[in-house]
């Protein structure tokens, strides 16, 4: 039996964003979405959700200051 790390309390929710979501989300921000923080393709979470290099992940996590905070990361080699 293998443990699904996504169920662990310390692992926030990671989702792969679709092309539409990407264009929706990053159309009116003052940065290029390619400048977003990176996540390694061999990161355990990336492997668990099956993301490929180039994918953008939406990470929803609890925040001490903001309650819930949504951030993004680009999968890279």
């Amino acid at each position, binding site marked *: 039996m293998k443990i699904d790390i996504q169920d662990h309390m310390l692992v926030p929710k990671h989702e792969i964003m679709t092309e539409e979501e990407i264009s929706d989300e990053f159309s009116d*921000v*003052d*940065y*290029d979405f390619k*400048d*977003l*923080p990176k996540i390694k393709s061999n990161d355990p979470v990336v492997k668990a959700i099956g993301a490929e290099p180039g994918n953008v992940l939406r990470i929803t996590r609890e*925040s*001490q*200051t*903001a309650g819930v*905070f949504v*951030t*993004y990361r680009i999968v890279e080699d």
Partner: protein
Amino acid sequence: MKGFIKKIEQINFGLMSPEDIRAMSVVTVETPDTYEDDGFPIDKGLMDPRLGVIDPSLVCRTCGFRGGDCQGHFGSIELARPVIHIGFGDVIHKILRSTCNECGRILLNDEQIEYFTEKINEAMDSRESLNAILKEVYRVAKRELKQMPEDPDEEIDMKYCCPHCGAPQEAILLDKPVTIRQGDYKLTASEVRERLEKITDEDSFVLGVNPEVARPEWLVLTVLPVPPVTVRPSITLDTGERSEDDLTHKLVDILRINQRLLENMEAGAPQLIVEDLWELLQYHVTTYFDNEASGVPPARHRSGRPLKTLTQRLKGKEGRFRSNLSGKRVNFSARTVISPDPNISINEVGVPEMIAKEVTVPVYVNEWNIEEMKQCIKNGPDVHPGANYVIRNDGRKIRVRNEETIELILEQLEPGFIVERHLKDGDMVLFNRQPSLHRMSMMAHEVRVLPYKTFRLNLCVCPPYNADFDGDEMNMHVFQTDESRAEAKSLMRVQEHILSPRFGGPIIGAIHDHISGAYLLTRDGVEFTEEQALQIIRKSHLELPIFKGGQWVLKTNHDLKPDMEVPHDIEESYIYKEKGEKWTGKELFSLLLPNDLNLSYKAEISKCPVVYPIEDETVVIKNGILVQGVIDESAYGSFSGKILDKIVKEYGPGRAKEFLDRSTDLAICGIMKTGITTSLNDEEIPEEAQDRINEHLEKKMAEVDKLVESYEEGYLQALPGRSLEETLEMKIMQVLGEARDMSGSIAENYLTMGKQSDDDPYDHVMAVENHSVVMARTGARASMLNLTQITACVGQQAVRGGRIERGYLNRTLPHFKKGELGAKAKGFVHSSYKSGLDPIEFFFHAMGGREGLVDTAIRTAQSGYMQRRLVNALQDLQVKPSGLVTDNQGNVIQTMFGEDGVDPAKSDFGKPADLNKLIDEIRMEGK
């Protein structure tokens, strides 16, 4: 060279070729002497005038400038034999190890060469570090044969041979710092150089030597540059003797040996002698570069002091970088001991007259200030608002010295001159206390020139500087331009820093007597006669109330003349006083508050078990009148003051500064009403209380013994995840903690501020019985824990977070049995500080105390370094208006600053908004 401004566009790092050194050289130094007997520098000597001049009366023979303007010129020494540069010993070793001993090719096959060349090119294009690739090159190219076979015909494994010519490669070793050895044979510097010369440009590129800027053989010196005399000036002593710089001494040594070596070689001296001299030359050149190299005995001065050569000039805290480039000494600054002065504003700093007469402010003379400046010059440099220098329109700086110069300057003085006048009241200066950990460590103050020799500062600014007066010193810097002055005044003034950017609350605020004074003033029942009250108002520099129609009208901040109608717009905030009526302390304090201030909160003393009268614990301010409650730490203490916080945020820093200044005065009046004093009597408790405490402690000791017993007999149940011993230790710690707390709370019942209820015998309300408790309860200084430790029981001493374990084998001290686990044997102190500790307790207490001292010493060093690394990592980050955080490359760090976009400086004690406060405000508005 004067007036030349060159702009650096690019810096290229490489090695200097012998040709470069010769081309740069203006003279080939040959004579190992400096000056002739007649005092003239020897031609082709180390002080050759072509190398530059220092004396302003001499002219440089190379550039034609006088001393001071000539920046000096390099010379060179032709070394009789090559010498290895000490900084490149290991580079040479690595290169030799990776190249063939015979053909000089790199010990890689063609594919590997191609692979690494490409990789290096790639890394260079993307400006990445080459270190990792080069490390790999050296690792792959290393093919060392430990021992050459005795029999020359013996077959050698190809992996120990050159892939190009097939020659076997015997291991090359480096005897630090500069001796290179192959097997038993010691390679001379010439042989090393020859081998390096054989390496092709393509191969050297793979070895990390870019042929565009360097060649491997340049790692071995054949010509030595001689730095200009300006780098190594000689000093003329009072006796007329000349004392040369350490570098010159070293160069003399090199030249002397070089000369002898040359003569010996020309005379055809035996190989042995030549080699000895050669080695000596190598030694001198090595120590010329670095006199602290390991394995080389340092060259010494005649006095036995090691010479300070090139490396020593640059390296370390006192080296050129850390001491002259990163940090410099500045003019127009002063440093002295600080002392307190509650009579000056928080925006001010008291400057001793001595300092005010030394540091100056440059003032442009114009037709409006010319008379004032004339007066300054008339006063001269020794009378206070005077002047030290005058800069004329032609740029000449004249010192204001005596009557003659003063008259001369006064005649000439006209608009456009700059007068460097003394510091005077109202000037802006920067004030700083090290360590400068946050922006509040440097603030702009207004000068108050005062007598005596210390800087004076208001006590409210102690917390941001973390200053006290046990001998602390602080620095002052005087602004020299109007721009800097204006900028500092709007950004760095003390009042602009009342709110800390760390948590959005006041960091500048009342401390110590300021708090207890306000408490003594505003306690319920404090009354003053009309005369006393008016005295206090005058002493506190408050506006005098208006006397109208036989009444005093308080808090009319309008320009009301006695014959005018009292305006009714904010009449709710007026206090009317009949003539002869008593004034309360609360009414006096209300004079400080803005007329439309509304606020209610729990005072610091509400944490007391009993508050008398109970109304005092809830502070209510209505329309700027302190209706009920006392003023203590929660009102205007630094870090926690609620009234202060509200005043800064809603009425601005100017009003807050005024509030702090005036409340300081008022608190002094308050504290003078009763006086404040403390003695051991304050920590006195009745005998019955002492008995109860002892009884209690005994009970707890019995409990500990019982726990130990149950452990020894095996009844004790281990807690989950803990061993039996850990469980016992935890339980004992808990019991002992309770023991201390209980004894403390028994004592606390007797440590009261004064009257506790209506039936208490103290008849005068102002009679505060116990000032120690007042200080602890109002938050002025000390805590109830401190008091109970003095009165009741000091409690468990800890080393490394647990009970004391160390000392003798299985016991702390020989007074106990081995393996004893009781309270006393492991550092529990039953006694109070007042009753005194027994020798064993005292020893344990010293152990715990020592640990505390060591920890603070270590913590400051560690946290300092941690902060330095953090600042280095974060200093280039920027927050965009949208809340986006990026680095200087444009990489996103956070899409929203702090995830909620709240600037902690503008937050309310760390939170975006205080809802309770907002609701209170709305409710009050509704009324």
